[in-house]
């Protein structure tokens, strides 16, 4: 049966691909702490409520197990980031910060990195953590059962220098090496508990695993010996797939934190009992175009499709305006982002003209596949289909289960159009690599010579400014060539009871519950 677990975790590799946008789904709340609707004053004036230390938060899906080395599901890392620590961590602003490692140094050739570990860190089972645990953890992350092994194949040697010092030696230069130690899957685990991390995780993190009843709840309790102890004693994650239930439960005081859709914000607006947090997210949503389709191979047809869609109206309708229009495959919050919205802006006449020019005066028929588990994508797809109909492209919609979508659309690329989302990472290369004509995840079947060149160059380029230029050039090409209709970079909405403070979001998909506390209001 072990084999099955492995297989399934491999399946979930793909889940990282479509992460947000679902009405009932919190993956993809990889956010920057740029609360548009800020709550800072409140946090200043209120003091920590030491009586109230139990927090209830809604999750719409169960985690895919709790072993961070054996899954790629965002739903797992949202929880395991509280149970396990990593060597370094990422701040809400996207900076790398110390965690289990207090300091680090990179060799001059850029090929090896040495970490000095924090003293006195103990696992939840009471044993002290040493450099050997770090070595074991990375070996486990690299072994064949790990879905991330490819990402860490570059690490050639792991050398324990003393019990608090460890060195990683890599094969080739990777300019974003350090970020690889900040992801929640680079968690440090104790060897003795490795067998059953999936159901009984043991780490060094600020919270201990208490109980998990699938589809019901998952309970964490405070790890008192953590170097930066949490304020909360208990965190209950309640599994509630239905938004209506979540909202009602928050209103009934059964929950303290939920994620909501734009239409529900109105329920809480102007109510002093709740705080609404709006966060830009490190993710984008798009309609992918299969460029191998006879008509869609023609750039003019793709451009016509882009011109036919009123993106802002689409965002207003499906996401209630909570999203930032994009013109290329890049989230607005990342520093490499350039605004490409004006490259092709909504113009149906121009769209019709282009279509005619391409030889499709009498129209065109395309098949669109939409993933059933993501209502927002289903809605967006219907609206786009409606708009394409107006320029003479007839779209047949088929709504498919996620599993079917993965196999038929994503893997076999048997589709013309599909609406989906992509989550970002800390390293822009990871986000864009799929546009390389040879890349296995290039489900657009996209092939562009200059794009391939850029994607090769950018890996070796050590000069930050030049790299930035390359990334921006790439964004520009995608905006003009339209391998996908880029829709928006979503803004996630979180509503908390107003006595909840310290809840922030991160550019990678994690929740840090240790900073959350209740105030005396």
């Amino acid at each position, binding site marked *: 049966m072990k084999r*099955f677990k492995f297989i399934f975790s491999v399946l979930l590799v793909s889940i990282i691909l479509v992460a947000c946008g679902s009405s009932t789904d919190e993956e993809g709340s990889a956010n920057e702490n740029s609360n548009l609707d800020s709550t800072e004053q409140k946090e200043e004036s209120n003091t920590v409520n030491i009586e109230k230390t139990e927090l209830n938060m809604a999750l719409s899906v169960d985690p895919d197990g709790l072993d961070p080395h054996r899954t790629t599901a965002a739903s797992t890392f949202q929880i395991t980031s509280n149970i396990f620590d990593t060597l370094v961590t990422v701040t809400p602003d996207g900076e790398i910060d110390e965690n289990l490692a207090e300091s680090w140094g990179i060799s001059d050739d850029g090929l090896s990195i040495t970490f000095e570990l924090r003293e006195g860190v103990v696992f939840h089972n009471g044993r002290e953590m040493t450099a050997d645990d770090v070595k074991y953890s990375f070996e486990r992350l690299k072994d064949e059962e790990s879905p991330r092994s490819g990402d860490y194949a570059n690490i050639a040697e792991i050398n324990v220098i003393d019990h608090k010092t460890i060195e990683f030696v890599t094969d080739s230069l990777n300019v974003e090496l350090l970020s690889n130690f900040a992801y929640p899957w680079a968690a440090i685990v104790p060897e003795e508990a490795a067998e059953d991390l999936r159901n009984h995780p043991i780490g060094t993190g600020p919270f201990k695993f208490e109980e998990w009843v699938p589809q019901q709840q998952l309970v964490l309790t405070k790890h008192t010996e953590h170097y930066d102890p949490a304020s909360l004693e208990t965190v209950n994650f309640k599994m509630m797939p239905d938004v209506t239930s979540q909202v009602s439960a928050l209103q009934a005081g059964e929950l303290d934190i939920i994620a909501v859709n734009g239409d529900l914000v109105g329920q809480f607006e102007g109510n002093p009992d709740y705080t609404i947090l709006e966060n830009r997210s490190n993710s984008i949503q798009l309609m992918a175009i299969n460029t191998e389709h006879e008509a869609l191979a023609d750039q003019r047809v793709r451009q016509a499709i882009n011109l036919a869609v009123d993106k802002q109206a689409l965002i207003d309708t499906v996401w209630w305006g909570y999203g930032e229009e994009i013109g290329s495959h890049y989230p607005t919050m990342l520093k490499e982002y350039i605004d490409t919205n004006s490259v092709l802006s909504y113009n149906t006449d121009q769209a019709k003209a282009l279509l005619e020019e391409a030889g499709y005066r009498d129209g065109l028929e395309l098949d669109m596949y939409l993933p059933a588990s993501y209502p927002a994508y289903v809605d967006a797809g219907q609206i786009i289909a409606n708009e394409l109909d107006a320029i003479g492209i007839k779209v047949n919609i088929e709504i498919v289960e996620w599993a079917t979508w993965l196999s038929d659309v994503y893997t076999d690329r048997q589709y013309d159009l599909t609406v989906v989302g992509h989550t970002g990472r800390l390293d822009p290369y990871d986000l864009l690599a799929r546009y390389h004509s040879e890349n296995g995840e290039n489900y657009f079947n996209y092939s562009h010579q200059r794009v391939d060149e850029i994607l090769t160059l950018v890996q070796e380029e050590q000069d930050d400014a030049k790299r930035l230029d390359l990334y921006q050039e790439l964004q520009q090409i995608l905006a003009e060539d339209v391998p996908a209709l880029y829709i928006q970079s979503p803004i996630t909405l979180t509503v908390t009871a107003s006595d909840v403070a310290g809840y922030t979001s991160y550019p990678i998909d994690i929740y840090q519950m240790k900073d959350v506390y209740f105030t005396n209001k």
Partner: protein
Amino acid sequence: MLSFIVKRLISGLTVLFFISIITFFVLRWMPGDPATLSLGTEGTPEKIAELQEVMGLNLPWYQQYYHWLQDLFSGDWGSSYVFGEDVMTLIIQRLPVTLLLAAVSMVIVIPFAFIIGIMSALFKERWVDYIARSLMQLGDAIPQFWLALIFLVFFASKLGWFPVAGYVGFDNGILASIHSVLLPAIVLAIGQVGPLIRIIRSSMLSSLEQDYMLMTQVNGLPKTLAIVKYALRGASIAPLTIIGMQLANMLAGAILVENIFALPGIGRLLLMTVEQRDLILLQGMLIFVTSAVVLVNILTDICYRLANPMIRFGGNHE
């Protein structure tokens, strides 16, 4: 009696055999074989072939079926892709919620249906009957998922009489536990009450029309005695026959209701299993659920026999 039980068990086993065949083939015919599905975006033809071999998917169907049955009987029901847990463990974990839901719902339905059904039969064509039959008709016609949504918004969310979602375990007290499933149980009950009232009413009516009721009249027995002792006795058995069906209906209702009320029961697990194509778990659950229905049918048949001297001693002459 013993021979009847043996016969009934054999026929039950035959039913289970057909169920296993249906389940097996339906799941084999599902698009995307388990190996391809499991590998997702990582699937290459080689990897898939390798995995198919490991999973035994390249064997002829009868061998696959045989192996599957073998595992089933040896208690190895496999483990879920999604939860990584043993199928049996998962089912047993979920069962109490659904059982409690079904039990509470039954506790509401049975007395209500009996009272309404009997009154409706006794006061046939009078206002009690009209009300009862209207209730019955409405109960049959209201889509349960719609009712669940409306109840959720109105009673739980707006009025706050019930928890909005989720199940409270027994360790928080049995009353809290019941309270947490009460609203969904009422929704289920409304869906169940129609058929039950109908059968109680009609069996009561037919009992009232039996000649033995004439006998009580000729013997001058008071009406209440005649109804309680004679008519009711005659009418009490027929409802037993639909218990198996009611159970199946209730499980079907639970799929929708548990999902809307976020109750971690069998129904919710089932829908998730279908949605996520957790084939091993789905297989296990289908076998479990249908076996439960078959078993309940067998038990009610046996009880029916025991409770009904008409059949128990029947057949020796005509």
